[in-house]
């Protein structure tokens, strides 16, 4: 099922367009790659193109698993804790645990500053 969704992206002409319907900006990807470490020197022109599709697949998978968490909680709004639950439950997302965990621990430390916030959900 997910495979079919991924393949349909190939037929939309997003490859050669600057930002096709399923692509992400290549210049931004290159900046993030360059900032990932001092050792990164040169980047082939095709590497950001691979990443634009890979990030598409990554966002799709993370969104799908997070949505499963949301519906298990009988909710129809995707929240940050749904993403955290999906990360914890999926082995290949282990590298993200510190990212979501740091936010959690920081939140605990800042509990005394909590104010009531109403979220506007766009749809």
């Amino acid at each position: 099922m997910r495979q079919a969704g991924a393949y349909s992206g190939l037929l939309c002409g997003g490859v050669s367009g600057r930002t096709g319907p399923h692509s992400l900006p290549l210049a931004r990807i290159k900046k993030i790659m360059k900032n990932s470490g001092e050792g990164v020197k040169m980047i082939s022109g095709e590497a950001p193109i691979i990443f634009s599709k890979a990030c598409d697949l990554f966002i799709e998978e993370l969104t799908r698993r997070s949505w499963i968490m949301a519906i298990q909680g009988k909710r129809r709004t995707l929240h940050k804790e749904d993403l955290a639950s999906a990360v914890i439950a999926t082995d290949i997302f282990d590298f993200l645990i510190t990212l979501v965990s740091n936010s959690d621990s920081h939140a605990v430390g800042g509990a005394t500053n909590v104010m009531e916030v109403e979220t506007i959900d766009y749809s």
Partner: protein
Amino acid sequence: METGGFHGYRKLPNTTSGLKLSVSDMNMNMRQQQVASSDQNCSNHSAAGEENECTVREQDRFMPIANVIRIMRKILPPHAKISDDAKETIQECVSEYISFITGEANERCQREQRKTITAEDVLWAMSKLGFDDYIEPLTMYLHRYRELEGDRTSMRGEPLGKRTVEYATLATAFVPPPFHHHNGYFGAAMPMGTYVRETPPNAASSHHHHGISNAHEPNARSI
């Protein structure tokens, strides 16, 4: 929590409010500016923020939120909503994913004494780090892309492994291969060199224009 006609939340649970507010006020302001800026530049190209240095730096660290949300909407049912904190978190996850894979690909390059991270290095790193399911669609995507750049006949249909060898040869000889004359990946609209040497991070932070809008970049490289 009771089932029924209730249509989702208007107010976040307290714990989520705490999570959201744990971010400093400055970060929240920066994030909001980025969201607004991304909306204005939706579907065009990377926004060149002129407001201030912080905004530019913030925008350089994440994918545009509008693009990310559009991809999420493909997966979610029509009635689903996405909270602001989920949008911010997934932006951070995408950047972390790119850095994670790039770091592994770069280590491989260094072990093999190569200076350029190639598409094959990225695919290898993904497979090594557990994203095996992505390899097949990405390989097809890459083949499709190369077909669309049809003038590079010397590489058309060649297996990926052979192309890696060519890069190794290039690294050794420092001589550009014959196909170097056709290094425009998107024709005139988006010229990109086959090998692009980027400015160092310090200079990059004050470098406000983007590669997409550049004129054809010079191919001369200094080692």
